[in-house]
């Protein structure tokens, strides 16, 4: 087993562990923290199911963002939708035999990478061109975009510029999953791609990528508007004296 394979295998186990435990801990801390008062942004759905549907619309359609800024919505949607297709396409490296719908998705996933990278480029351009957004941007906001662009471009280069040995790559990936390590092809674009992905996984729980779990816990979106009908209790508040 080459040191390269060992390094990358360990890297991925470490990154995955940080991702799973880090995000898991965050979710736990959000879930554990009480929401003492009813604060849905109204008009809001009157039932919990309605509120769930509202959150789903935020996640799938970016409803509020659409209300506020069409450019950010467009670039954000391009990036996230592109990323989703690309991720689904990557399932082929982890399944054997590859599920049929993943096979059918391959051509779309391939070109979705353009959507993804285009969206990222648009979002990054706004950080320079719009003074208000330039004002609020921190170095980490830029670096996050660099990281994602790096992942996207290095991945695309293997598809559109020089093909990598995906047969051995798949063996390496499956090997990771089944704890039966196989050699990793020493292809520079692939190594860059995998390194950046591992970095992304590792920093996920300590960065603004927490918006992904966060959106499900936002009380202004996930609470139903039923404050009068149903008493909402605050766990830490003083009780009514009898």
């Amino acid at each position, binding site marked *: 087993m080459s040191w390269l394979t060992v390094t990358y295998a360990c890297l991925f186990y470490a990154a995955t562990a940080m991702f799973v435990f880090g995000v898991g801990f965050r979710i736990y801390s959000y879930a554990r923290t009480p929401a003492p008062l009813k604060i849905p942004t109204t008009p809001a759905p009157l039932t919990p199911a309605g509120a769930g549907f509202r959150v789903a619309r935020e996640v799938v359609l970016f409803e509020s963002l659409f209300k506020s*800024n069409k450019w950010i919505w467009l670039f954000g949607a391009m990036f996230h939708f592109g990323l989703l297709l690309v991720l689904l396409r990557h399932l082929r490296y982890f399944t054997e035999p590859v599920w049929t719908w993943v096979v059918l998705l391959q051509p779309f996933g391939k070109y979705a990478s353009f959507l993804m990278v285009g969206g990222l480029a648009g979002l990054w351009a706004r950080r320079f061109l719009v003074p208000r957004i330039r004002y609020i941007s921190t*170095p980490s906001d830029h670096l996050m975009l660099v990281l994602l662009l790096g992942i996207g471009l290095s991945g695309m280069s293997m598809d559109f510029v020089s093909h990598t040995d995906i047969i051995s790559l798949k063996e390496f990936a499956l090997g990771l999953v089944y704890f039966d390590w196989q050699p990793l092809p020493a292809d520079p674009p692939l190594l860059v791609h995998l390194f950046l992905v591992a970095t992304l996984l590792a920093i996920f729980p300590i960065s603004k990528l927490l*918006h992904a779990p966060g959106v499900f816990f936002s009380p202004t979106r996930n609470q139903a508007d039923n404050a009068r009908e149903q008493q909402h209790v605050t766990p830490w508040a003083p009780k009514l004296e009898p």
Partner: protein
Amino acid sequence: MAQAKFEVPKLKPYPVIPVLKENAMAEVKSFPANAGIQQALGFPGELPEDWHDVAIAKMGELLDKYRSFRVYMDTCVHCGACTDKCHYFLGTSDPNNMPVARQDLLRKVYRRYFTFAGKYFPKLVGAEDLTRDVLDQWYTYFHQCSECRRCSVFCPYGIDTAEVTMAAREILDTVSVGTKYTNEIIGKVHKIGNNLGLPGPALEDTLTGLEEDIKADTGVDVRLPIDVKGAEVLLITPSADFFAEPHVDSLIGYAKVFHQAGISWTLSSHASEAGNFGLFIGNYEQMRKVAMRIREAALDLGVKRIVVGECGHAWRVAYSFWNTLIGPLDFLDKRYPWPQHVCEVTWDLIQRGALTLDKEANDHRIITFHDSCNVARASRMGNMPGGQFFIPRAIIKSVANHFHDMAPDTIEEKTFCCGGGGGLLTDDLMEVRVKGALPRMEALKQVVDDHGVNFMALICAICKSQFTKVVPYYGFDMSMIGGVHQLVSTAIQLGTKQ
């Protein structure tokens, strides 16, 4: 035109996002509360020596108590969608008044003390130590937010800057830093029962005077009862309704509605205030204590229903929080088991034909309606989402012939705050208030020019006080401002129905 010590923004024919002017509003601060005011609320009188640790500990406590605060500190992606949504930014051009930048004033400290990245790579993520300068900055800019929640409508994660502002004010208070305006008022409610410090006897005199006025005006004996045991309805209304103009005209309106519908009602000298400034400073205990007077009064007077008068944040507290703070209100009539807005009551009566209304009495008025943000984005009326938009307009259209809405981006859930809410309604913040009113003034100007609108109807005491003071700066007459029930009062024909 009123005289200003600052430049009053020009009204433009269509909204323009301003060019950033850093620190434009850095020197505009509310008067701080003195030691006596702070101590009366249980806050320290002066900055403790270990204020830094106290403040950080308080932040940690709030992170554990409020999911909103915890999640909102982590979730913002700096997308910038909210940057042009705050009326204070639009009116002042100060970038710290962009909602995300306002949150970041607190978030940079959160990151420094509570996150891995901020502890080890502060520069990278914009984390900063808590210093006296940062504390001052908090005091300035968290008192240039009216907690109106407009930003939360537009944020993809629903991040509500009002929650962040409340947390910041709560932290400031625990190290003795508060504003004279809000905290003095909260003290008055605890001592006397209302924001104005109006004692019971003075209140009775005022009400008797109003009864005489109505009699002189209409020839009918309309009563404004106080502390009547066994009345059906307890009316909880902002104390400004008792004597401020144009508020008092709405109070007369409620009285006429109850009179004609034959509903027995009463005010309470113990709970003579609907407003609850505990909300503004984000302090649960203060908010609960202020609200508790209402439960006590309702039980003491043995009423069957509680009705809340025209007040934005008060309706938020009543609608959204009473059940949590002072509920369950299970002693109320099962048909009206929860607090009702006076507009709900009036609309219900109108639909049942219980009121005799002469629309033509309002023909000299061409009316528009300002959605008060606390009603619009933090509560409801009636039994369907958006009832808070529909019902007041339905009332206006039932009592008047000429109504025109302002531009769609400035009403309903997207309404612009009046500029004076959230504890900013004080003369020391006049510059913030005038500039913050700009987006609303532009929308008003448009309907004035296009439709000849000469009356802006409201359902909020703070909005009424704010607008009467601020519209003259923009060349409008303060008599344009009035309550929805002022219109009802004009239209209602007393003595025709019993």
